[in-house]
């Protein structure tokens, strides 16, 4: 089984990485870029083939380790 966890900074949290990328894109001539936010994702390979179980398990991993609930939110997707 494979699952993905997408982790993003909460909307209210400042994203310096996105800021710098947006500015670089402006410099490169992409003036139509309004905003960039950067996130990360984890592709997790799991044993077993129970989708629902995998989803729950990966959500648990996200909550404990992969995302920092203080500043980040996450979304789990089973492939």
């Amino acid at each position, binding site marked *: 089984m494979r699952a993905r966890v997408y982790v993003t*900074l909460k909307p209210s*949290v400042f994203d*310096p990485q996105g*800021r*710098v990328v947006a500015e670089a894109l402006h410099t490169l001539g992409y003036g139509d870029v309004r905003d960039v936010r950067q996130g990360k994702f984890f592709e997790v390979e799991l044993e077993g083939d129970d989708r629902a179980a995998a989803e729950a398990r990966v959500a648990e991993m996200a909550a404990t380790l992969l995302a920092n609930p203080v500043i980040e939110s996450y979304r789990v997707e089973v492939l």
Partner: protein
Amino acid sequence: MSVIDRKVLEQHGVTEGEYARIQELLGREPNMLELGLFSVMWSEHCSYKSSRVHLKTLPTTGPRVVQGPGENAGAVDIGDGLAAVFKIESHNHPSFIEPYQGAATGVGGIIRDIFTMGARPIALLNALRFGSLETPLARRIFSGVVAGIGGYGNSIGIPTIGGEIVFDPMYAGNPLVNVLCLGLARHDDIIKGQASGVGNPVYYVGARTGRDGIHGATMASAEFDESSAEKRPAVQVGDPFMEKLLMEACLEVMKTDALVGIQDMGAAGLTCATSEMSSRGNCGMDVEVSLVPQRETGMTPYEIMLSESQERMLLVAKAGREREVEAVFEKWDLHAVRIGHVTASDRVRLFHHGALVADVPTKALTDEGPVYRRPMARPAWQTSVQQLDLGPLAPPASSQTAFEALLASPIIASKRWAFNQFDHSVGTNTIAQPGTAAGVVRIKGATQGLAVSVDGNGRHCYLDPYRGAMLAVAEASRNVACAGGEPIGGTNNLNFGNPERPEIMWQFGEAVRGIGDACRALDVPITGGNVSLYNETEGRAIYPTPVLGVVGLLADAAQTVTRVFQAAGAAVVVFGENRGELGGSEYLARLLDLVQGEPPALDLAAERALQTLVVSLVRGGLVQSAHDCSDGGLAVTLAECTFGSGGIGVEVALDGVKTVPAPFVEAATLFGESASRVVVSVPDGHVAQVLTAAAAAGVPAQVIGRTGGGDIRIDVDGATTVRMPVAAAEELWATAIGRRMQSAAGAA
């Protein structure tokens, strides 16, 4: 505008008495924005309302003091028209909530305080406290804090040259992250955070303002509880690249004489910067809040004024010189935005799209804040924790076992796991590698060098806050003395619990008294510092933990030594007296699980004589190494002198101290932590001269053995108590923290 009722006041942390005073100062009811301004400026964090009466007693003057407390940082003269500019700052609460960002933004804040003064930051140090390394939470916080400090300081290119780290369950729910930054400026270039010149433009530059950290200033002043929750992001994310741009641009602007004054927006953000700058310059300021660059839409003047977004500066330029200032910022891809001007009034007036939304007397915010002489009471348990009766106890282990346990204790073990994540070579000024001495930097273009050390011992202060604080001052200045630095100035970070509790306030008062007495005796003026109160979780306070930062001046940066033995066949000399004091020692804590007794006695005159002696010996090139004797006592100190030497061992013979019950003689001799001791290694040809100098200075000195061989061997009263190959001991000591962290490889 909503009504200001009891609930609103509570949310703002404003007492009814304080509210009455606000009304009196304004001559009317404040509106919500004005209440917000007062609440942050009168918070503990900004007004020092609980601590001020005590801080006033500290010695702050001296012939070298160029800038004492009151500005963004202190400064002391180091000759040739140069000044060392330095200050320490804490970021304890944010680092508990989000270790990486909390520590990173803490580093960012103190760096801004230094370059704001017109000084180029040249070094960072940190003092950290975490819970026991055996717990996952402490490891996670430790790991995040270390990464955060590195992530910020490394990027900007300021070397981290030293620090100290202590692990103790008392800090489990409330870690401490204190960061000291040292900068260098020419006296004439020191710039103050002051506004003046009616009509002069006020500029905002740096990161855009978001809703982050609103109530941050009040957060730092209130205990955690379950509900210190969501609403607004309590965590600020650091942007070290922005800070680097700001630093370079500001230092460049300062070289023009188009600048009047500048201040960073730290705690209480724009509110603090506008009111403090006007207050120092005895003028007023008009600001159009809507001109402040904003990161989010729909921000209210209240949010803009109270935001604590990072990496922002406020500056006042000379009218007519606007283009020059703007051009420098543009060079660095920053946009200085004119948001207001200096006025002849004595008020800060805020406008929003032209409408007056706040109108407050400047000094009311900065100088009229409440000052509390809070009740103090010596805790009932104080006397009992100071009782230490070794009589009924038996030593828990052989000296050899105790020695090995101490070397592997996270408090004593090498901190390389942490400082190998800090860039310490950038800047090409770092003379001593971290872990081998006080941090030492040279000064390019001058002969002088600077040695800096940060020290504190919460356990000592818990047992006796007065003496513990004195010991911290003594240790920090002794450390710089061992590097050949004459202590010339100090800064302090006072980390304590809830000052509304009389026992905590007593600890605070005692500690400040101790710092004052020690600084006076050692001639170390305090030029600034920081107070962090309410360090408790669920009613449990940390150890009272004053952290001292001391700066020492090396007449010649090349004349320095580290703790490391340089050659075999040198005489090993101990200065000072071993009184075998085990009270509050790491030995008792680690091996007997006992935090008990009185901390080691301190004779300040003897301490001063010792430090003066050591500085002169290092400067005279008479000693090859010098190391302060502290945690783990003489045995650990000797072992540390062999570490990093490439395996140069040591053989010493000690007389057992006779002040303790017989079963503890070995332990007290080896691991007792008597203060005012230094171990030096001396080539044979210099021994007589060194002993004569010690005698002349009235410092007890004793040749206890020689360097050489591959072992650490310590005999007490003719019997070998500790014997171990240097390599084995060093391995134990060097890897103790890494091994504990390995099992906890965790999230980035």
